[in-house]
């Protein structure tokens, strides 16, 4: 395999006669790449970057729609107030997201390990089977869980009728239900990056480890795990970040004591229409994420972000 790779990177073929746009030129056609990327980048700048700027500016203002907004020099107060009023929810969201990330990791790692290493020809089939449930809208899946887990529903109701459970046992409207729901919904976000990393693992490395008399466990800890770390990192990010902002699971499966910061932000913006506070909370959310990611990256010792 190494030889093949060498052969691939043999000296570049000589410059072909025709020199028109569309070919793979290095740095020659200065404009082509910029033209290609222009529409997409323009769209993202206009509708991703600029809005973030607007949201940021909103935090410097004070007021309501009815009386108009005016710049306030006391703007740090907005952030401080937002944080102190809703610190419970912010911390709760971080904690739930962490639990969900760990849970998805623990659940999907063994599974994706088996599929990648031992799945054989049916690898893709298994991965697709795994992804199949996620073809239905996420709302529907969560609502289905609400139905399945409802106090007197098919599952709990039957158990209660037989007498296996006490009449007031409930699964819903609890942190457990919320975290379970979130774990369910975010599983592919962890599973897929793990799979990609595990799949790239070269089995001959494990063979080499075995040749060097390492036990299976050692091989796993010293070879597999470190090599799949980028996948773990990517999966963790892709799971943690959306989880922290998720609020649908909490609204459908939880109770008011499990309210996530996302719900608060939604309420501030769509009901109270307190844009400054909503914007400040959004930035606090982003800040929490950046801090968490930074700490995590340091802990893992890897800077590989985009892969």
């Amino acid at each position, binding site marked *: 395999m190494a030889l093949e790779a060498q052969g691939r990177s043999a000296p570049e073929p000589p410059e072909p006669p025709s020199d028109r746009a569309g070919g793979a030129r290095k740095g020659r056609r200065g404009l082509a790449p910029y033209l290609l990327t222009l529409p997409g980048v323009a769209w993202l700048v206009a509708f991703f970057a600029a809005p973030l700027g607007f949201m940021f500016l909103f935090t410097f203002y004070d007021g309501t729609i*009815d009386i108009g907004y005016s710049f306030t020099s006391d703007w740090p107060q907005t952030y401080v107030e937002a944080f102190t009023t809703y610190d419970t929810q912010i911390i709760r969201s971080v904690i739930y997201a962490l639990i969900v990330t760990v849970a998805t990791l623990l659940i999907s790692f063994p599974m994706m390990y088996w599929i990648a290493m031992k799945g054989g020809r049916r690898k893709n089939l298994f991965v697709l089977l795994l992804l199949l449930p996620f073809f239905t809208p996420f709302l529907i899946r969560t609502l289905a869980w609400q139905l399945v887990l409802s106090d007197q529903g098919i599952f709990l109701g039957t158990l209660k009728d037989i007498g296996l459970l006490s009449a007031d046992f409930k699964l819903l409207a609890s942190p457990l239900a919320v975290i379970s729901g979130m774990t369910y919904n975010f599983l592919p976000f962890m599973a897929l990056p793990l799979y990609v990393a595990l799949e790239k693992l070269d089995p001959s490395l494990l063979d080499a480890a075995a040749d060097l008399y390492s036990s299976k466990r050692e091989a796993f800890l010293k070879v597999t795990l470190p090599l799949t770390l980028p996948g773990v990192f990517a999966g963790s990010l892709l799971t943690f970040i959306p989880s922290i902002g998720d609020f649908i699971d909490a609204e459908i499966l939880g109770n008011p004591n499990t*309210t996530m910061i996302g719900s608060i932000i939604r309420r501030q913006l769509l009901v109270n229409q307190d844009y400054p506070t909503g914007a400040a909370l959004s930035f606090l959310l982003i800040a929490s994420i950046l801090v968490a990611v930074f700490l995590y990256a340091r802990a893992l010792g890897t800077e590989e972000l985009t892969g």
Partner: protein
Amino acid sequence: MNDFDRIMSGISPRAVPRREMLRRIGIGAGGASMAGLLAACGVEGESEQPAAKGKDPLSTAKVAGELNFANWPAYIDKAKGGSPTLEQFEKATDIDVQYKEVINDNLSFYATIREPLASGQPVQWDLIVVTDWLIGKMADLGYLEELDHSKLPNFTKNAGAIYKDPTYDPNNAHSVPWQSGITGIAYNRELTGREITKTEDLFDPAFEGQVGMMTEMRDTMNLVILSMGINPEEATLEDARAAQEKLLKQREDGILRQYYGNDYVQPLAQGDLALCMAWSGDVLGKTLGSDSKVDFIVPEEGGMLWTDCMAIPQDAEHPVDALEMMNFVYQTDVAAQMTAWINYISPVPAAKPILAKANDSYTRQVADSPLVFPSKDMESRLHSYKNLDPEEEEEWNDLFNEVIEG
């Protein structure tokens, strides 16, 4: 920052400085010319008819043939995928009605129209139905058209006396009632195991995780204040704070399951809730009938009586068509037809005898029910919301938000 300043103040061009705003509230429902105010603010004349915002806006305008009507779900009679009342209206007036049940919560709905109203842009709705306190608030802000009562003869003729000239909208200048309702408690007899009679029951630890309260601040706060033995119309901020403490404890102790808008009916039916705050008409249908497990009660300590009203947002495109609808539903037979289905309190007393003579027993039971046509005794146990001025409203909202935002 300067450009942004301009953009931001552009959100509500009419209300640039606060002083201007207060001045406008002072003028309020008197109907000063908007065009005049705008000119005073230095904003050029709006494109829509400035004359229409004057003293008698609607008497000169004509029926346009189209009506955009926003309402709460299950708030109009339904049959075979359509609504008899709406169909009859369309036939009688040739006005095409776009009826959308988009209102689930006063504040959430208000949030969807507040911006255009604040900046003088047209709102997509010609006719909306919101609760009395919001009517008062919107009227104060100048967000509602003044009604031309010469076009509402049926209201004048058929509406009950208590519905005319209410405190939240003197002389019905901006609204006429749609239906009234009672806030009380609904419960599942099988799940509670006993009769429920008081608001205090909602705080009983025996029902841990099975109790529901409402997201409507006024309903919840006022009901709790009643349970503390205080008349809500005289409640002070201290009372509100005490109510808040009680609610916080209810949530923290796990007694409360969830705060609901008008979506408590399913959890109640499903068995997720044993008892909850409820609105009379939502559950009435479930309480009638011999095998019903659900009951609705007005708590011993007292319940709330509120009125949802029809109003026309400022700058609506088809205001006269809205007036036609307002007038239409005040005919006694139409009112009876609506209440037979909606099961809330009709503002037309003459609807009762019509329902009492109906063919099917369900409708006759509705006619008999004190929840639909309250007796004097029932009325004595019902209270109105406390009128909150903007400052008090903010304080009460802050207290309440702390409760529901977990």
